[in-house]
């Protein structure tokens, strides 16, 4: 019999009711991967796209050449920021369940990526976040009240009531506007980086997408442009194993890593333990240095796990084992940094519990303030007149006419 072609339908390693199975994940030991100089030619470091850069071992001890130069105070601050992100997420998740906001997306389990990268990049570097990078907004000092007011679409909403929850921006802090269309920010980051190079500035850009969105054309456009012009940009793929219900095999992750996507273009790829704050920090610093010294783009794949549902509209118990996160070999990023700090003697369970309480109170206070600016159901409302602003730099006559039509209707009905 001659073999026939077969349509391959990727299957995840476990479905609801099955025992979780992460044997498909290729892991390296902490400290096992050598750290090349940041100006090493891409062709000499292709191993970084399949190995896994890890610093913290299973006992929380930092190992190997990638151990970053971070003080204890910096690590404690990182822990605080990760916990703050987690408390913020928990509060907003609850707000959605209470009907106070329409929608929410947690970053549970992925906090180390945003916090470590936010620490490793310079304030002048431009960030093009995806929808699960709230940690970037937090580490760059956006007030929780502002983030909450965006989710509430209230009178203090930075987006003036025009966007679903979580589509934040912070121009002052160099954080681009989050888009609901996936991967569109990738070519923006490359263009921004090209402009930085054209102007002869040293600022770099950084963008984030999930494993699922690597299938979008924009991902490939961005890699091509970044490679062609050697743009000073860090392109991050947050591989949290799941794109709503499709596991990373449906984005083409079954045979090669996402980090390897750049190799064909000569872009170095680095696969990093995304739940290891020290490793993410070290790899980001390496890529940033490379970009700043004219070495062009780096593609970083962060191996992590989406601890929560895709969004408040999703129910992952229908497509993956409930206890899958518990079995994830790279653990929980908060617990791993905590363990490291406890090991070094600078932190304790008691201090950790106290910090959690402190942050919970802080978040609750912010929420109390945010709702004074209005919610979807009560309190002050945005003036509907702003609906017609900012479509263009100046309101053109046809939009002014439509605004007046609407206002006349509202006056009649009052």
């Amino acid at each position, binding site marked *: 019999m001659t073999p026939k072609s077969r349509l391959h339908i990727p299957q995840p390693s476990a479905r609801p009711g099955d025992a979780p199975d992460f044997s498909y994940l290729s892991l390296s030991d902490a400290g096992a991967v050598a750290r090349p100089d940041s100006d090493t030619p891409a062709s000499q470091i292709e191993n970084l796209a399949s190995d896994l850069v890890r610093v913290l071992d299973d006992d929380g001890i930092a190992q190997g050449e990638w151990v970053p130069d971070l003080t204890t105070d910096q690590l404690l601050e990182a822990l605080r920021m990760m916990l703050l992100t987690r408390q913020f997420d928990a509060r907003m998740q609850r707000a959605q369940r209470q009907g106070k906001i329409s929608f929410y997306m947690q970053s549970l389990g992925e906090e180390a990526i945003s916090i470590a990268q936010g620490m490793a990049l310079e304030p002048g570097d*431009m960030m*093009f976040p995806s929808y699960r990078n709230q940690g970037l907004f937090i580490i760059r000092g956006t007030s929780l009240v502002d983030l909450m007011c965006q989710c509430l679409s209230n009178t203090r*909403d*930075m*987006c*003036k009531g*025009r*966007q679903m929850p979580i*589509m934040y*921006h912070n*121009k002052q802090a160099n954080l*681009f*506007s989050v*888009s609901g*269309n996936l991967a*569109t920010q*990738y*070519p*923006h*980051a*490359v*263009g*921004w*980086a*090209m*402009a*930085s190079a*054209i*102007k002869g500035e040293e600022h770099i*850009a950084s963008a984030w997408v999930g494993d699922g969105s690597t299938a979008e*054309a*924009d991902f490939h*456009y*961005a890699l*091509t*442009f970044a490679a*062609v*012009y050697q743009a000073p940009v860090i392109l991050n793929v947050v591989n949290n194993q799941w794109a709503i219900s499709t596991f990373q095999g449906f984005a083409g992750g079954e045979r090669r890593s996402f980090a390897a996507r750049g190799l064909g273009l000569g872009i170095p790829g680095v696969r990093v333990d995304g739940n290891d704050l020290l490793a993410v920090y070290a790899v980001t610093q390496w890529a940033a240095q490379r970009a700043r010294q004219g070495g062009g783009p780096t593609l970083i794949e962060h191996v992590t796990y989406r601890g929560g549902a895709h969004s408040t509209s999703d129910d992952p118990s229908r497509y993956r084992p409930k206890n899958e996160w518990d079995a994830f070999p790279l653990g929980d990023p908060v617990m791993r940094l905590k363990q490291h700090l406890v090991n070094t003697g600078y932190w304790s369970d008691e201090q950790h519990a106290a910090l959690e309480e402190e942050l919970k109170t802080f978040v609750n206070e912010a929420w109390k303030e945010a709702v004074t600016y209005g919610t979807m159901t009560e309190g002050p409302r945005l003036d509907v007149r702003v609906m017609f*602003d*900012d*479509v*263009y*730099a100046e309101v*053109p*006559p*046809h939009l002014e006419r439509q605004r007046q039509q609407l206002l006349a209707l509202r006056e009649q009905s009052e």
Partner: protein
Amino acid sequence: MSQMNMIQAVRSALDVMMHKDPTVIILGQDVGYFGGVFRCTDGLQEKYGEHRVIDAPIAEGGIIGSAIGIGVNGLRPVAEIQFADYIYPGLDQIISELARLRYRSGGEFFSPVTVRAPCGGGIRGGQTHSQSPEALFTHLSGVKTVMPSSPYDAKGLLISAIESDDPVIFFEPKRIYNGPFDGDPNKPAVPWSKHPGGEVPEDYYSIPLGKAEVVEEGDDLTIITYGTMVHVAQAAVHKAGISADVIDVRSLVPLDVETLKTSVEKTGRCLITHEASRFGGYGAELVATVQEECFWHLQAPIERVAGWETPYPHAFEWDYFPAQDRIIASIQKIMEAV
């Protein structure tokens, strides 16, 4: 003043703006060393350098997407899409990102990208090099859409487009790059030097976006059109021997409603013509606008002459093209109505 064709006028606009504003850069396929397949950027890379006139990979979505990022970082990109027919891979970036960035970010971010694209038929381009997709863009909120019909307008409007902080889709009707065209392919080509629209100042000047132009004045009929069809409509009016206002809207969005209204209130009769196919075309919006604004002044139903609702066929180009005979037939219909 010098004599310029539309290619030279576009180039002159780019040159003037690159000289005046060091943040203006050009990005597109073949625009750099070679100077563009239509020569619109010829000599500009030599003059302004490889960092300001940049050859791009063949990826329209990447050209527009990266231009957005370039614009966010303080430069003023002019992206060339080699043919309007190739713009579709960039549609998501135009619709979801470029058009809405200012709005969605509460007015804080914007990207002043100008997208230039040669459009229209009459060059034996078949269905992949002849399209007029302007209606896809006029439907969007947040971009302006422009199409000039002469070298003079092309330069003045392109300068305004580049200076605008709003994104502008700038369509160049390529059939009239080298000379006005009255719709008859069998007549010898006429150069722009024989037309007043070919007189173009070498220095800076601008024509505001959102202003239509009455290119010919008359009493009995208003013809509203743009692009190549401005010249076809004028020729049809002369051949039909009637007295008509011919209005070139120039800026499709924002639309100069007042100029249309003033004319139709005067003439009481209106014909709308464009090269793009009819159903859901920009002409439908013009008909609706005239009907809303001028209904009680109309003495006859509004007529629409457009491309047939087929793809632009290679072998039947001149059967597809809405030429003088079709316009004259519609003029007669309008004028005969009581």
